[in-house]
C-alpha cells in the first residue's frame, strides 16, 4: 500500500526528532558528569570573580556570559574564561597580577550592569544607603557639607569581598628587610591603576611610576582601601617593618599587581 505524504513526513519527523532528542540526552548526561567531575577536580584556586559575585555554584547557573561587566570596566580588569575552564567557559574572572580592580570606576559599575544579578548589586546599594543614613545620624554633622555620593561610594567599595590578600613571607622584600627603588613591574607592563593619593580621576600605567622606599611597602602605599585593609607594622621582635593584611581587605588585587618580586609575594585568595 502506498503511504500518503503526511504519513511519510510524520515518520520522518519521529525518526529525526528521536535522533535530536538522543543527542540532547547525551549532551545533558555529559554536562551532568562534567559538572560533578569539575566540582571534584577543579576547586578553582585563584579563580577570582568580579565584585559582588554570588556563590560560585549559583554564579555558574545564572551567568549568561554576555560580557557586559567586561565592557564597562574602565581598567579592563575583567576577562572571560576560555574553553579550558570547562563549564565555566565564558564566565568573567579577574587576574589581578595582570590587571587588578583598582576601583577607579568609583561605583562598582560591573556589578550594577549585570542583568542577571549574579553580580548582585542590591547588597551594595543597601550598604551604601545605610552608610549615608548613618553619616546623617551622627551628631554634629552638617549634611550640607557632606557629599552623600562620596559616603555611599566608599561604603560600597569597602563592602566588596573578592577574596583576601595573603603575604608570602619567604619572598616578600619587606620580610627580608629589603628596599625597593625603580619601576615595579618593568617598563613593558601594561597594567594601570589609580593610586589612593592620585589627583587624577583616571587610572595611569604602573610603568610610569617610580618608587623609592627604604623598606618595600608598595602594597600598603597603593592599596585603594587604605589602613582598614593593609598596614605596615613592626614584627614581633620589632626589628622588621612588614605589611599586615587586615579584615577590611576586599581582595581587589592591587597589591598583587604592584608587588615587584618575580612572582607576587602577596596574592589574593578567593573565599
Amino acid at each position, binding site marked *: 500500500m502506498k503511504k500518503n505524504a503526511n504519513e511519510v513526513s510524520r515518520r520522518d519527523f519521529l525518526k529525526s526528532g528521536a535522533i535530536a532528542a538522543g543527542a540532547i540526552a547525551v549532551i545533558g548526561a555529559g554536562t551532568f558528569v562534567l559538572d560533578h567531575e569539575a566540582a571534584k577536580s577543579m576547586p578553582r584556586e585563584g579563580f577570582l570573580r568580579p565584585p559582588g559575585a554570588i556563590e560560585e555554584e549559583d554564579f555558574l547557573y545564572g551567568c549568561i556570559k554576555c560580557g557586559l561587566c567586561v565592557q564597562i570596566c574602565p581598567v579592563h580588569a575583567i576577562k*572571560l574564561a576560555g574553553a579550558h575552564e570547562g563549564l565555566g567557559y565564558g564566565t568573567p574572572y579577574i587576574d589581578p597580577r595582570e590587571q587588578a580592580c583598582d576601583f577607579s570606576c568609583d561605583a562598582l559599575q560591573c556589578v550594577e550592569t549585570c542583568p542577571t544579578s549574579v553580580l548582585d548589586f542590591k547588597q551594595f546599594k543597601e550598604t551604601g544607603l545605610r552608610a549615608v543614613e548613618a553619616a546623617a545620624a551622627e551628631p554634629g554633622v552638617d549634611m550640607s557639607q557632606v557629599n552623600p555620593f562620596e559616603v555611599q561610594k566608599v561604603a560600597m567599595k569597602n563592602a566588596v569581598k573578592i577574596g583576601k590578600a595573603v603575604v608570602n613571607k619567604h619572598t616578600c622584600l619587606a620580610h627580608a628587610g629589603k628596599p625597593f627603588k625603580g619601576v615595579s613591574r618593568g617598563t613593558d607592563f601594561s597594567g594601570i591603576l589609580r593610586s589612593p593619593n592620585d589627583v587624577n580621576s583616571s587610572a595611569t600605567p604602573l610603568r610610569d611610576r617610580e618608587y623609592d622606599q627604604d623598606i618595600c611597602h608598595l602594597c600598603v602605599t597603593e592599596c585603594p582601601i587604605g589602613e582598614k585593609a593593609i598596614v605596615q607594622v613592626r614584627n614581633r621582635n620589632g626589628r622588621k617593618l612588614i605589611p599586615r593584611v587586615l579584615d577590611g581587605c576586599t581582595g581587589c588585587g592591587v597589591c598583587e599587581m604592584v608587588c615587584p618580586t618575580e612572582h607576587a609575594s602577596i596574592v589574593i585568595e578567593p573565599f
Partner: protein
Amino acid sequence: MNTTYFTNGKNKAALAPKSVEQMPHSKAGLSFTDWRDARKKNHKWRNIRWAILVFMNLLFVLSFTFDLAVLEGSLSGSRLIGFYLMDPYNSLQLLAVSSRTGYITMLTMNFWIGLTTILLFWAVLGGRSYCSWMCPYHFISEWAEKLHLFLVKKKKISERSFNRGIRFVILIGFVLLAFLTKNLVFENLNVVGIVSKAMIYGPSLLLLWVLFIILVEVFLSRRFWCRYICPIGTTWSLVGHVSPLAVKFDLEKCGYCLECQKVCLVPHELWFVKRGTATQDEHYVGSDCTRCGLCIDVCPGKALSYSIKGASAVL
C-alpha cells in the same frame, strides 16, 4: 484584522494556473529564459542587508575596543545606548534554571525590560529578520552555502535534507536540559554567541565547534544549522507569527520560474510560487521567513516585495 493574517490561505483550494498569454514574459514580449535571467545579477537588498549586518556587529566590536558605549555586550545580552536587550532563547533557558534554583526573583528589572524590548522590536520587524540582518553566523553561513552549492553543482556531493521539526525538539530539549542540569548548556554550543563573543572579546577554542558546523554545512547539508538546529532562529520564528513586516507575493507578476525558492533559506515558506498552488492573488511569506530579501532581488517579475501585513485594510 482579517482571518488570513495568520492562515495565509494555506487551507483553501488552489486557483487555476495562468495561461501562456497571462504570463509576465509574454506580456513583456520576451522568451521565458531571457525574462527569467534578467535579474540574476541584482543584489540590492542583499548588499543593504550585509552592510547593516556588518555595521551592527562592528558596532559591538568598536564599542568594546574604543569604549564607545553605544552597543555594549554581545548578542547574548547587550546594552544599546544604556537600554538593555536580552536574547530571548538565552533568557528562556535562564528562566528554566532560575525557577529551579529559586533565583528567578533576583533577576533585575533591566533583564525584564531588555527581554520585553527586544521581543517587541523584532515582533514589529519580522522575528527571524534577526537571523539575516543581525546574526554574524548567518553571514558566515551564506558564504558556506555558496561553496556548498558550487560543490553540488560540480556533483562532488549530493544534497541532503532533514525534517524541519527537529528544531522544535531542540528548542524544547535544551530548555528542559537547562532545567534538569541547572546549566545554560546550549550556550556552550551556541555558534551565534560563540562567533559574536569571539569577534568582540577575542577568539576561543570553541571556534573549533563553529568550524565543525561550517564544514557540515559545506559538505553535508545546505544551511544545516539555520534550517534544522538553531533554537534562537526557531524562537524568532515563533515571534514572526505576529509580525506585520513580511514579504508579499503578487500572483499576477509571477512567472512560475521558482528562482526565489532556489535562493531561499526556507523554501517551504514559498509554497505558493509553484504553478497551480497559489490559493489567493496575494500571499505573505510565513513566519520562518528571515526577510533577507534574496527572493526579492532575484524575482524576474518583481512579484515579491517587502510589505506590511494588513496595511491595505487600515489605510
